[in-house]
């Protein structure tokens, strides 16, 4: 991975030299205008097998959602030509008869078709058993990232990654995942030998690896839930206890955030948490603006400004 990164960087550097834009960059820096670049992150959570829009039955959500409309929306955003990431924070399964009948096959195929880049697992993804989830992964083209479930000697053992690194445009993005405690929430026979580990410890350890691998942005896909009235571990608690993570894409609590929540992490840096309800009723978008700075003066803690994107 490091070597590939080196080659990619070298190639970028060479092409930069060839195109003689080095002078231009230097000029920009000299004028104090930092070089900017953009990354678009699209995200969903708790879609719960909602492949078709909600039925037209007079209910609040009638006509909303559905993979066919979501796919068009994703395509139109991709046509803006920013590097785009598409992520999901779990509970892909359970909630419509599609799941009862097909155990997640059309959900997985639809997400692959839409071009999801990475997902994490929610508690309901165990609902037809861990072996079923592992089997359904034959239909996907994206990794399942989770760093706090020990899947040794389970059907998931060779079917997940603790993290993934994706190069999108200029950015090298590290993506990890954390899952909720399964005991008491999911029947034991469904999750089998899966061992839940402390998500804060696992997330920080994994984020440190991603930092060492020189990721520009580190994203944690989380199915912990945004926050609770007691001290149960949540995105809020993780955010405050975290290091190196820039963004938590959350789920489980089905909350529609009006805007991302900003917390101060263990190093005094900014970390954002966002969540997009459930059922694919909404899709979240975060446009990250990056400044290019010298690696050796790069601060350990990032500070970001949040604003609402104007609706074109």
């Amino acid at each position, binding site marked *: 991975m490091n070597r590939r990164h080196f080659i990619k960087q070298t190639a970028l550097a060479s092409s930069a030299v060839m195109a003689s834009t080095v002078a231009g960059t230097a000029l920009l820096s000299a004028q104090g205008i930092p070089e900017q670049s953009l990354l678009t992150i699209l995200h969903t959570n708790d879609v719960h097998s909602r492949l078709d829009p909600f039925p037209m039955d007079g209910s609040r959500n009638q006509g909303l959602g559905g993979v066919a409309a979501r796919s068009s*929306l994703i395509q139109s955003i991709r046509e803006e030509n920013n590097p785009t990431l598409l992520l999901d924070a779990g509970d892909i399964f359970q909630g419509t*008869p599609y799941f009862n009948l097909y155990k997640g096959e059309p959900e997985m195929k639809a997400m692959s078709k839409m071009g999801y880049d990475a997902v994490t697992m929610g508690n309901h993804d165990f609902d037809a058993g861990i072996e079923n989830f592992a089997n359904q992964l034959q239909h996907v083209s994206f990794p399942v990232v989770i760093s706090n479930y020990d899947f040794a000697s389970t059907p998931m053992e060779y079917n997940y990654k603790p993290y993934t690194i994706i190069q999108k445009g200029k950015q090298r993005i590290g993506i990890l995942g954390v899952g909720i405690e399964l005991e008491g929430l999911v029947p034991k026979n469904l999750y089998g030998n899966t061992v839940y580990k402390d998500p804060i410890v696992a997330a920080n350890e994994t984020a440190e690896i991603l930092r060492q691998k020189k990721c520009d*942005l580190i994203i944690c896909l989380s199915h912990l839930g945004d926050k609770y009235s007691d001290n149960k571990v949540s995105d809020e608690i993780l955010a405050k206890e975290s290091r190196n993570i820039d963004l938590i894409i959350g789920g489980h609590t089905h909350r529609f955030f009006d805007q991302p929540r900003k917390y101060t992490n263990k190093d005094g840096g900014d970390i954002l948490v966002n969540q997009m309800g459930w059922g694919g009723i909404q899709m979240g978008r975060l446009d990250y603006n990056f400044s*290019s*700075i010298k*690696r050796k003066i790069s601060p350990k803690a990032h500070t970001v400004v949040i604003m609402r994107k104007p*609706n074109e």
Partner: protein
Amino acid sequence: MRILSIFYSGFILLLLACGTTQVPKQVSYLGYPVSPKIKADTALINLLQPYSMEVNRTMNNVIGFTPTTMTKRLPESGLGNFMADCMKEMATQKFGLPVDIAFMNQGGIRASINKGNITIGNVYELMPFDNLLVLQELKGSVIEALMNHIAADGGWPISKGSSFKIKNKQAVDIIINGKPLDRNATYITANSDYIAQGGSDAAMLKPFPFQNKGYLIRDALIEYIKQITASGKPVDAKIENRVTSSNNE
């Protein structure tokens, strides 16, 4: 050439050594409604088609019949009574334990069932949530606290044989399974996992463990309706003064 290439590599290494990194500075956010106004992607429609044909066939499956339209109502409704009775009966069958009382949270009833045939699809509309049917052993005093919460909330469905009156937003004259509530007795209660975990502000239930067999309330409803139909009866549910309001609130 060789010298030139060493020079060139050296130059690149120099560039890398004082290499740059991308630092996030600014984030703009937006939530897109996935609305029916967006044109559907035909590739996805085609992908779904073989699955949705079969799903629709299943959803249109008739599993029962009701002579009256069943709608949710406060403080008590036939529909709510039907659901609470289903939970008590199916929990008894599934867990093999004598269930004293079942609770159905009012907010968990999501649709009416119109008179006529009942389809699997109707049950999905009635209970779209993936709530599990769970058992909890609760002291009478905890049930009283739950009943008070239910009374303050305007009344939730409870199973046959149990009743209470709402007076000044409190539960009075509580009867559990035919007998007055004993605060020191232990009762076996059927609930959704959502409520058993303190959902719908039922925080008093949260400290108590529950038994869970991964059995969805929706599946319990489907099985219960099928059992009624198999016995040659229609699905019928009546108001039986299980939850009454003794003053105007």
